[in-house]
């Protein structure tokens, strides 16, 4: 009979206790799995959102997160310089601000307003109507709105929208008339957020700053076949006063700043969870060994070498941790879905952002961590069993 078979028979001998142990490990394992999904989930999800825009480089005037610092001045000159770089394919400038839309029957509506340069396709996708067009013959300015604006104001593609821009927290009169070209899903939209995008020129007009040569951000796409870092280096070499970030660099910064809370929380909870898993398995196995001293001493007296006794205990640990660990995966996934929904309901969170994201790497890390914990937890009971004095144990069992 193999060590595995013997360990299995030992476990099934007390099915209730073994089942409770497996459930306990599954509960701890589910938490561990979730913490691993959380540890990088936000970064992975945010990276996917960044990638979905189609641009892999962001250029800003300062090292601040794009949109958080002062605007870029003389944008036309910057764009002209960047367009000459062979490392870059598409380049587009963007502005971020707010506007007030006149909604029939529901008063004024404040919305996030973006301006984007000609030909730019930002981080949104048209779900109804057409992409952003140009100024119409009737003088209406082009605009694409999200579903929330469309529903709140009651708009369809082709409808007109009266919109005034905010300039330094002051409404810039008079409002302009826009033509709704399309309805889109914006990837950075928060839940129920009101968002619209227009052309850079229309944005300037709406804010009453048609001559301001500014942008909050320039998006650029690396030419096919080149590495993003090469393009970033080329931009920095050409315009040293600018700050160019690849998506990876931006994510790395976010990982160190805004997202670090989640990383720290997941690290702390992962450590605590592993400690509980260790305590649970170590306690179960130690109790199991203590209850089976006579059995172990008998096996040794019959001629079973230490390594066989050790192998039996390691198998027992592997069976407990393996069964509980496998059970933990679906349980952890269901728990992750629920926790993700709770966290995503927080204010100011982009609707498409997820906190718990599955990656194969998380599964590998989970398997390694739970496996190592199982082995470490088995060390003390293994030591007890391996060092068990055969004769004294048999004598004590008889006397006891």
């Amino acid at each position, binding site marked *: *009979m193999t060590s595995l078979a013997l360990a299995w028979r030992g476990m099934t001998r007390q099915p209730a206790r073994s089942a409770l142990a497996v459930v306990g490990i599954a509960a701890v394992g589910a938490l561990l799995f979730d913490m691993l999904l959380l540890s990088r989930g936000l970064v992975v999800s945010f990276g996917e959102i960044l990638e979905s825009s189609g641009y892999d480089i962001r250029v800003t005037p300062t090292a601040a997160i794009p949109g958080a610092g002062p605007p870029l001045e003389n944008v036309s000159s910057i764009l002209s310089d960047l367009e000459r770089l062979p490392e870059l394919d598409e380049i587009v400038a963007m502005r971020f601000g707010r506007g007030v839309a006149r909604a029939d029957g529901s008063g004024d509506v404040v919305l996030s307003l973006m301006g984007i340069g000609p030909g730019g396709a930002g981080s949104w996708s048209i779900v109804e109507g057409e992409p952003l067009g140009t100024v119409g013959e009737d003088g209406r300015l082009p605009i694409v709105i999200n579903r929330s604006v469309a529903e709140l104001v009651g708009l369809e593609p082709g409808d007109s929208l009266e919109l005034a821009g905010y300039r330094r927290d002051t409404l810039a009169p008079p409002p302009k008339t826009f033509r709704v070209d399309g309805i889109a899903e914006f990837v950075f939209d928060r839940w129920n957020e009101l968002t619209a995008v227009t052309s850079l020129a229309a944005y300037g007009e709406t804010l009453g700053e048609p001559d301001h040569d500014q942008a909050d951000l320039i998006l650029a796409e690396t030419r096919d076949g080149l590495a993003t870092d090469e393009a970033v280096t080329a931009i920095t070499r050409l315009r040293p006063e600018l700050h160019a970030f690849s998506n990876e660099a931006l994510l790395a910064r976010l990982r160190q700043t805004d997202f670090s809370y989640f990383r720290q929380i997941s690290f702390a909870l992962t450590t605590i969870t592993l400690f509980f898993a260790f305590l649970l398995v170590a306690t179960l196995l130690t109790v199991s060994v203590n209850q089976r001293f006579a059995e172990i001493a008998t096996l040794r007296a019959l*001629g079973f070498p230490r390594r066989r006794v050790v192998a039996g205990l390691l198998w027992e640990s592997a069976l407990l941790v393996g069964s509980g660990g496998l059970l933990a995966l679906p349980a952890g996934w269901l728990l992750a879905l629920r926790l993700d929904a709770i966290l995503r309901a927080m204010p100011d969170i982009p609707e498409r952002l997820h906190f718990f994201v599955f990656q194969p790497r998380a599964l590998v890390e989970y398997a390694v961590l739970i496996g190592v914990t199982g082995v470490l937890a088995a060390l003390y009971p293994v030591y007890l069993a391996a060092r068990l004095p055969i004769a004294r144990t048999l004598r004590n069992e008889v006397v006891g």
Partner: protein
Amino acid sequence: MSRPIVEASGLTKVFPMPAGPVAAVTDVDLTIGEGESVTIQGPSGCGKSTLLHLIGCVERASHGSLRIDGRDVSSLRDAERSRLRLTRLGFVFQRFFLLPMLTARENVELPQAEAGIPRGERRERTIELLSFVGLAERAEHRPSQLSGGEMQRVAIARALANRPALLLADEPTGELDEATGAQIAELLDRVHREGTTVVVVTHDPAIAARARRRLSMRSGRIEESAGDARPERAGGR
């Protein structure tokens, strides 16, 4: 005397105790030949079980030399002693110590599997042994479904599984009533008659009287030896 299975010289075992070292076995010289039947008697704490444990290689001697089946066991590493116990020695314990999660058949098969005996051969051997101890019909019963006497018979079958040169029994009837104890004693006699060297530690004078050679221990020493040391052999269990 026939070929010696056990050769002990100056065998001593001292246990460290809080109140000072206690000598459980002191300066024992003993030779047991192949095919002998030996009982060791004595009052509680006289060292008879410790002597059995020393001979059974589950305890290391503090002093003296011990050869089992021609091998000096004092120099053997733990794994080698385990192998010796597995292949050359058989143990029968007072409390049977069958593995509770295994059936009678599996308990008897277990040492054979560990010794690397092929499945078919060990199945055959197990059936033969369970028949020998009269429990072929109870082969698939677990220890909890057996009486004390039946468990001890399974334990004897398990001890014989790998055809040991020496069967060691420590108070094999200590947990049994008189009638069942007598059956176990008779079974051990049969084991001996079929050629296995048997050493039994017992309190029971009736059991001791069945052996050809009777040793008596007191305060860790063999005080007297009675009976005939000539082996009585028959087939080969």
